[in-house]
């Protein structure tokens, strides 16, 4: 079953980029096709980040353990769309003007935030292979917690990008907060339940 579903999921995850490429050649991306490409690649990067972050909560809440087998693929698609999004900035906004890019990134908080979110995903994508998981051992998990920081930066990037913060950026911020909040709640609960490390009992 997994042999069928996983390739299908992979193809489905490519649909947004296929739609964009089709649109470029068909001229269906509107009056500002460059902006459509930037908005869509950014949105899909954030959507896949959210999906990746949802894997663990879904597994813990439902006991549906096979979902973990999709986590790496989802994370790599987040990186894939983030790369396209970053490339669109380099090519469509700056047209390879590296001097302007170096000046622009630190000067504009929303770009710096997006840039940070992207850069943090690079080590995670690189160390996503079985070999790196083995080599890093326990440190692998610690390293991959960077996705939390990346997701927070990506959300702030979205909020700071828009001229008036309503609608979608707020929705994404709420979802990311819920997914990260779940982890905090889970670890607090685990700590309380762990024998020998319980919170000192009050006089009872």
């Amino acid at each position, binding site marked *: 079953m997994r042999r069928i579903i996983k390739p299908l999921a992979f193809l489905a995850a490519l649909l947004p980029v296929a739609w964009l490429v089709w649109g470029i050649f068909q001229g269906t991306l509107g009056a500002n096709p460059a902006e459509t490409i930037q908005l869509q690649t950014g949105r899909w990067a954030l959507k896949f980040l959210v999906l990746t972050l949802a894997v663990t909560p879904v597994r813990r809440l439902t006991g549906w353990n096979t979902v973990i087998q999709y986590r790496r693929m989802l994370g790599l698609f987040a990186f894939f769309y983030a790369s396209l999004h970053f490339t669109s900035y380099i090519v*469509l906004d700056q047209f390879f003007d590296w001097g302007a890019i170096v000046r622009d990134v630190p000067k504009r908080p929303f770009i710096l935030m997006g840039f940070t979110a992207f850069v943090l995903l690079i080590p995670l994508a690189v160390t996503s292979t079985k070999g790196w998981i083995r080599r890093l051992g326990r440190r692998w998990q610690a390293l991959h917690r960077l996705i939390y920081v990346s997701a927070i930066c990506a959300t702030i990037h979205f909020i700071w990008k828009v001229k008036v913060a309503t609608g979608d950026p707020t929705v994404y911020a709420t979802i990311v907060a819920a997914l990260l909040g779940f982890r905090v709640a889970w670890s607090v609960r685990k700590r309380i339940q762990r024998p020998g490390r319980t919170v000192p009992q009050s006089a009872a």
Partner: protein
Amino acid sequence: MLIKNAPEIRASEITDESHYLRRREFIRLATGVAFGALAAGKAEAQTPLPNITKHIVTTAADEKVNSFQDITSYNNYYEFGMGKNDPQRYAGRLKISPWTVKIDGACAKPADYHIEDLIKPFELEERVYRHRCVEAWSMVIPWVGIPLASVLKLAEPTSKATFVEFTTVLRPTEMPGLSSGGLNWPYTEGLRLDEAMHPLTLLAVGLYGKTLMNQNGAPIRLVVPWKYGFKGAKSIVRIRFVSKMPVTSWVEENPDWYGFYSNVNPNVNPVRWDQSRERRLPGFFATRKTELFNGYGEQVGSMYSGMDLKKFY
């Protein structure tokens, strides 16, 4: 009487003669596009404006006029939603007839005008202007309208009138974007009196030879081609002469990002924006160098001589 007093822009001041002489070629192209759009059912609500007496092209020969489709499908008009398509989708709900414009404040003859009465005394002009959005994209748009100065003179502003404030219509039942919050509505904009009286400043009532589409600010909007697009208040219901600089909607929302003047300037880059270059739509790359005053410096620069444009942005 006022017709005679209305300032005229000699075309030779604005564009060189060879471009001016090619205007008919341009108009032919333009109407072709407009009829194309009409055939596609996109402009059924628009009526032709037959009495356009002047055609003034202010852009260079290599600057192509944007298609009717581009100009009417990619708009910032947050009262109808924040997506660029939202105004095209929802602006049809706005009832633009009848329409009254109140002109009041520091003037000798305040009055409420039916829009027909306001426009009728003047000759309609086609003005092909660059349109530069603060979001670093630009278009070339064939507006139809009358100089704002003609209308302002009707009201006879007093010596106290140093600024002019423009207010956009506010109709929650017809403007679905209002419910999601956003700016402090109604939308207001403002100009210094000399800017408002400048011959380039246009009260637009048409596009491509026809009445405006609602998403472009029908039935009457402001066009100030040397400033960022948001200065051009849409669907105007009130023009008020004031003695103090008005606090405009965007300045109120975020004074670090937006200034009162908001003249197009590649050297002034508030923290959110990089204005050094722009994307001329429908192009892909933001490689066009932004011009000071959007290329209208020769006509408008003198109004700002001695002003620190970095401070008064």
